[in-house]
């Protein structure tokens, strides 16, 4: 594709970046700033599912996540998620649908479940919950 590669910031990663109390905050912040540096160099695009960004209420997300573009979830994405093999976990399903539809190959997450799919997961050496 003619766009730079997209890196999807998954919910657990967004929350870890945004929340100073989160046990993964330091690892997330370090990784995020590295991703932002690569974004500034036009090497990658940073994207996040719009509902995940929307959950971060009370946070001036225009600043912290200013470089992050939203992937808008539509009816067709929800329908595809409901028909996916992980339909019993709607949030995981939606994230995977958005990753597939937008040709995302790299995901920034602390959710161990994403290691089960053909995605490059960052931070590589970080703590994972799952």
């Amino acid at each position, binding site marked *: 594709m003619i766009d730079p590669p997209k890196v999807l910031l998954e919910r657990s990663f967004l929350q870890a970046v945004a929340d100073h109390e989160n046990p993964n905050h330091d690892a997330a912040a370090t990784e995020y700033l590295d991703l932002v540096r690569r974004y500034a160099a036009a090497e990658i695009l940073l994207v996040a599912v719009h509902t995940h960004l929307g959950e971060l209420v009370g946070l001036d997300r225009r600043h912290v*996540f200013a*470089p992050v573009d939203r992937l*808008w979830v*539509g009816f067709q994405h929800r329908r595809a998620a409901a028909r996916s093999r992980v339909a019993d976990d709607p949030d995981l399903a939606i994230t995977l649908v958005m990753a597939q539809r937008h040709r995302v190959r790299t995901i920034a997450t602390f959710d161990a479940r994403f290691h089960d799919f*053909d995605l490059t997961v960052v931070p590589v050496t970080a703590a994972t919950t*799952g």
Partner: protein
Amino acid sequence: MSTAAEAPTFVDPSARLSHRLPLRAVVPDDEFRVVRLALMFEFLFVYLWWLRFMGLPIDRISVAISVGLFLLCAFVGKSWRTWGILLLDCAFYCVMWLAYERTRGAADEGVSVFGLFRIPHQLQVESVRNIDRVLFFGHDPNVVLQDHFWETTVRWYDVVASTTYMTHFVLPILVMAVLWAISHRQWVRFMKRFSTLLAVACLLFVLVPTVPPWMASSPKFPYQLIDELHRDAGRGFRHIGFYGFASDYKVQLSNGNGYAAMPSLHASFALIVPAFFLPWIRSKWLKALALLFPVIMLTSLVYLAEHWVIDGLVGWCITGGSFWFWNRMERRTRVQRSDRAHEALA
């Protein structure tokens, strides 16, 4: 704010590599993708049939209809939000071309600025001819090229010149339509550069209305600055059987501004397309080949007596300026957003 503050567990990612599921095995494919591809191929087939037997659609209405039909094919099954954005894009696209058409017309008689004052119609006749003569050591490139190459029979280079000339009516629109279909982000990037070029060109059409070489040489007009030149940009096409071009082309010209020579949009559009795709071309030879296209276009324009050389050079400068400006702006936006993220996390 709800955050998952569970105790972390460490997982060795390499241990999971062997049994990773491809996303396509988990998520159902977009069933409309096949429909879209089939419709787009069908559109291509109909377009080529139309091109061969009916002629190339080059007037604004026909082009708008063909682009609209292509977009219908390319956006089938996309979300309502995507359709909404497409409608906004289309509105911008239409306003851009309407503004262009209006300005071209206004340039014929001078322009009144909000009824306060009038920009006079200061026709450039000798100035552009003189600049060309300075550039070419006292020669008129249009006259020299036609003296050496124009013959009563159509030669291979007439076909090349004519084909290159006619790509102007297709190439940028084709690029817009394809970018529209595959990457909205890249479409926006292209349109920023394209509309800036068009806006500056319109401004110059009003400020510097310029007599083109065919007019400056024609006995039908009162200038006759240079030897009479042949003007038949479509004869190469007719030679290879594309009669539709010529008749539509005349319709197009009847609505156009005859003095819109400076800058040459033919030359500008021929540069903007390869220049936009240059970063994706790896090979230096292919880059050089891509940049040869605007050179062939300008040579064709001069040979076909449509433009002075300086018209093309100014067109290229505006195109370069548009890229310079928007590259800078986009870099600045990226840096500003990055700085905001850094400051917020500091």
